[in-house]
């Protein structure tokens, strides 16, 4: 089932010079590439659309629970939609569930979400379980990575991690957590340490199973929500701890996705240790390059346009992002499950004629 899907028509030209894995890793390591990659990592940056789910018979919510289906759905997204990577999982609830949250798995169209938080207050840290990568949905993800590593060695394989603040706000009601950023900093740091330990365990298990790189998405840490000061104190050190760990221990590069108007974070943005930073559609790539000149800029085609726009408009918007300096072309956020495959493929074509000097 996994390999039966026809390849997207762009595949021929993609493999002309460099395989997808080499290209993306080369871009992130600044070793030069034939052109920019077009990716959609997975996790919060959702790549799964119902059209692929239907044609591959790997549907949500079942694909969240079965490693074969999980692998099949992300491979289908690569082959049918022209997304030049694979990655797991398809949601931001795997780690939270492993730490004690109750999850509603959603539906064919809607992603899973937390239905019951394990903590009632910031002091409830002893109510949390320690993430075990060998049971439940963490194991499903690890097993799916093993399958993908074997079946598709030349496609870059993402370990998608929920960002530290976003994981914390999946364990404790977000507004209760945000209050604690002011009223109980010490307890917040205790929670963040525990969260990072779990994320390190999960990320390491995915990498050991064959993941090539890490994408950390932390929407709850957006500058608009918590501001630069709280970002620098509670998000940045923990994001960097993860990035540095994976780089040092496994030589694995990372991408960090930040939502909202990142200019609120100002100089803190360039302090993120990841090789690449991905931003929301509200941010011009030129601004990102100015705020964090040493990073590969990733982004940032509007996902509403992706779902509802005409293919030629989407193609042109992709070209616009590349022209503005995106080193990696990607949707600006998670895609809607209703996004037509034709639209994604149209965007995937924008990288084909892109100037090489931008890489």
């Amino acid at each position, binding site marked *: 089932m996994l390999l039966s899907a026809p390849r997207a028509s762009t595949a021929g030209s993609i493999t002309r010079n460099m395989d997808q894995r080499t290209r993306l890793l080369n871009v992130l390591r600044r070793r030069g590439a034939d052109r920019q990659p077009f990716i959609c990592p997975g996790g919060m940056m959702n790549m799964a659309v119902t059209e692929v789910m239907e044609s591959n018979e790997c549907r949500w919510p079942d694909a969240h629970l079965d490693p074969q289906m999980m692998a099949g759905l992300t491979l289908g997204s690569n082959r049918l939609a022209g997304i030049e990577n694979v990655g797991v999982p398809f949601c931001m609830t795997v780690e939270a569930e492993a730490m004690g949250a109750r999850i509603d798995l959603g539906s064919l*169209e*809607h992603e899973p*979400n*937390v239905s019951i938080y394990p903590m009632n207050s910031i002091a409830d840290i002893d109510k949390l379980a320690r993430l075990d990568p060998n049971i439940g949905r963490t194991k499903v993800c690890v097993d799916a990575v093993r399958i993908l590593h074997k079946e598709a060695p030349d496609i870059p394989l993402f370990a998608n991690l929920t960002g530290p603040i976003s994981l914390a706000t999946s364990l404790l009601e*977000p*507004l209760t957590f*945000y*209050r604690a*950023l*002011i*009223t109980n900093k010490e307890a917040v740091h205790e929670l963040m340490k525990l969260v990072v330990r779990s994320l390190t365990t999960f990320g390491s298990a995915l990498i050991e199973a064959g993941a090539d790189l890490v994408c950390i998405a932390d929407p*709850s840490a957006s500058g*608009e*929500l*918590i*501001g630069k000061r*709280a970002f620098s104190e509670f998000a940045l050190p923990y994001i960097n701890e993860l990035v540095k760990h994976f780089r040092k221990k496994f030589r694995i590069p990372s991408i960090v996705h930040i*939502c*909202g108007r990142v200019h*609120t974070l100002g100089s803190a943005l360039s302090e993120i240790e990841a090789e690449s930073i991905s931003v*929301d559609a509200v941010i011009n790539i030129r601004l990102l390059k100015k705020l964090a000149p040493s990073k590969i800029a990733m982004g940032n085609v509007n*996902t*509403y346009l992706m*779902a509802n726009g005409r293919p030629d408009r989407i193609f042109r918007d992709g070209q616009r992002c590349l022209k503005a300096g995106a080193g990696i072309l990607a949707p600006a*956020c998670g895609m*809607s*499950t*209703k996004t037509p495959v034709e639209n994604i493929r149209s965007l995937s074509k924008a990288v084909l004629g892109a100037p090489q000097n931008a890489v």
Partner: protein
Amino acid sequence: MPRERGDLLKDLMDAVFLMNEDLAVKAAKEVVAAGYDAYDAINNGLVAGMNKAGVLYEKEEYFVPELLICSDAMYAGLEILRPHIKTDTAVEKHKVVIGVMEGDTHDIGKNLVKIMMDAAGFEMFDLGRNVPLASFVEKAKEVNAELICMSTLMTTTMDGMATVIEMLKEEGIRNSFKVMVGGGPISQGFAKKIGADGYADNATNAVDIAKKLAAKGGSSQGRAK
């Protein structure tokens, strides 16, 4: 000897925007003990403080955590002062139905808007998150609301806003309500396209827009029941 009214109002205001809940409680108790007008203390003390916090939020000096702690101080003071409002000074509040679209569970923005509008004197009916579209219409009819506020963070669920507006039209009650929309992917252009009456890009802005819309009022013709 009780302190001057002006001193206490200043304490209430400072308590809220400087995030000092203890001071809010202490000053509110003093207002009650001195027999000053509770309604005046709420409006010109606590709410004035929350407005000041809102200004700092707009200037990006305060963010969500600060705004929440300010609102906690405000509510602590309100709890003490509210039972002492003289009934003749209490005014009829504008009723607002608010919620996050079906399919979306992100409610931080909605909760902030709710707090700021509550502070500004609106009566809030909160439907929560992942709200079935028909519930917006039903609740608005049930409580005879003036405003319907819809929020979403996801592009997947934006179109539900247009559906709610269509539902109002189908029932012939579109003009009975003002509709406001907001949230990450929403823009002024989108609001206009779907025929919403207002769009706000943050919680303090939402209060301004809501006040303007409430002043215009839903047209009386066709009002439910």
